[in-house]
């Protein structure tokens, strides 16, 4: 198993604001990588750079060994990169099932009954099957988050990017969502997960990186990272004792 994703000195700045500062790391196939950092650190921008919605200033994105830096978002989606959004963005005028079908037919390239059966399976996995024919605009927050996950999964991703998917959920909702994500990871999908709900994150990921001001400031085993003085200071705002 090789690296499914490799960022090589990836940088992006909006004027004086640097959202990605020479980001370089690799994610091995089948891994689950957690990303933490304060608000505005550039975590979501990093996802935008990986999915191709934001063009980089310099550096490279390599996906499954190919340089995809110049590829647009649609092409990267076909290649197997999918994401969820922190603020769910369903096609609100379409049903849950149709939302899923868009990803299955366009991104994963499935057709007809095969696509329909696949979507139904995913909807069952994400526990949205009872809502399949409901307009996406009428869903609750948890259901919308599950729809984000559904759509991303229907794209048959090799790499799944989750952006604060547990944020805003109750404890019980969070627990069931974490279980779903664990199952997805167990099925072989590589995951990169940005999350402030750290205990949820730690249940799934086996490696953690910390980002601040667009820069990667720490990387390693999750519990070690969470206990490091540097992370406590920068991420949690606690002054490190000398």
């Amino acid at each position, binding site marked *: 198993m090789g690296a499914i994703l490799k960022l090589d000195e990836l940088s992006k700045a909006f004027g004086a604001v640097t959202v990605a500062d020479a980001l370089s790391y690799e994610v091995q196939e089948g891994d689950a990588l957690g990303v933490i950092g304060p608000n505005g650190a550039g975590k979501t921008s990093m996802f935008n750079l990986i999915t191709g*919605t934001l063009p980089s200033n310099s550096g490279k994105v390599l996906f499954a060994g190919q340089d995809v830096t110049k590829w647009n978002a649609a092409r990267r989606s076909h290649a197997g990169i999918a994401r969820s959004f922190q603020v769910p963005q369903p*096609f609100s005028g379409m049903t849950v099932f149709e939302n899923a079908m*868009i990803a299955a037919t366009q991104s994963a390239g499935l057709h007809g009954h095969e696509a329909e059966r696949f979507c139904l399976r995913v909807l069952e996995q994400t526990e949205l099957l009872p809502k399949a024919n409901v307009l996406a605009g009428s869903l609750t927050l948890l259901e919308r988050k599950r729809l984000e996950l559904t759509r991303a999964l229907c794209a048959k991703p090799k790499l799944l990017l989750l952006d604060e998917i547990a944020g805003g959920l109750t404890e019980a909702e969070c627990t069931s969502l974490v279980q779903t994500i664990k199952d997805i990871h167990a099925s072989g999908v590589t995951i990169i997960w940005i999350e402030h709900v750290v205990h949820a994150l730690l249940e799934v990921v086996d490696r953690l990186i910390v980002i601040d001001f667009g820069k990667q400031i720490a990387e390693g085993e999750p519990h070690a990272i969470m206990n490091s003085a540097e992370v406590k200071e920068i991420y949690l705002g606690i002054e490190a004792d000398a």
Partner: protein
Amino acid sequence: MDWLNAIVQGTLLGGLYALFAAGLSLIFGVMRLVNIAHGDMIILAAYLGLTVTTATGLHPLLALVLVVPTMGVIGYVLQRGLLNQTLGDDLLPPLLVTFGLSVIIQNGLLEVYSADPQKMDAGALETASVAVGGLNLGVLPVLTFAVAVAVIWGLQWTFYHTALGRAFRAVSDNQDIAQLMGLNRRHIFGVAMALALGVTAIAGILLGIRTSFDPSIGGGRLIFGFEAVIIGGLGNLWGTLVGGVILGVAQTVGAKIDPGWQILSGHLAFLLILAIRPNGLFPRIS
């Protein structure tokens, strides 16, 4: 009976207006583009039909086999090559560019075909009629109305029952997310314009059989199309058909009162509906 006749003829005329409008409605629904050149594209299609019929001797309705795909290709190329570049957060650039296109098409047609009014010869079809319950219905208007219903049914079915239609609605809903789901919006927009101009080709040929046309009348067809779309409500294709019928009936009833009132009464009906229901009768897009 005279009044009933006016209403029935107006309804059938409404079918033609709905065909003018369907392409506009489709384009606005998918990409929020207001195509000012739409009327001129109808006339362009009529002239293409004229060229095909005079060159090959084909019946105008058979010429559709050539003109519809030609207009479709023109639509796709135009969208990919020009109109996609104008789309963004600002509604003004596509308005200006399609206005420019309108001028170019009109003058191009003048250059090639001159300002003389032309007409397509559809033989016996033009005058054929059937008597139904004391009314004489022209076969051509009935055929036009039937085609309008079929086209709108077809577009509606495409929108709600096919992968392409889902793609149209997804792109219409949120372009950025649609891209992330693997949809190439530039291509989808191209296909939408191809489809819209294919419908426009049908409208142009039926117009060219029904009445004489010259390069300058596109603007008027655009207005009728707009009015039908807005009366029916944005984003609702069946509403567009109703809008076309209301416009057609207002015109024929107006003409019945006084022949000079035909066009004016159509516009008045439009104003009245706009005043009472600013979003049209059955809006789907606000």
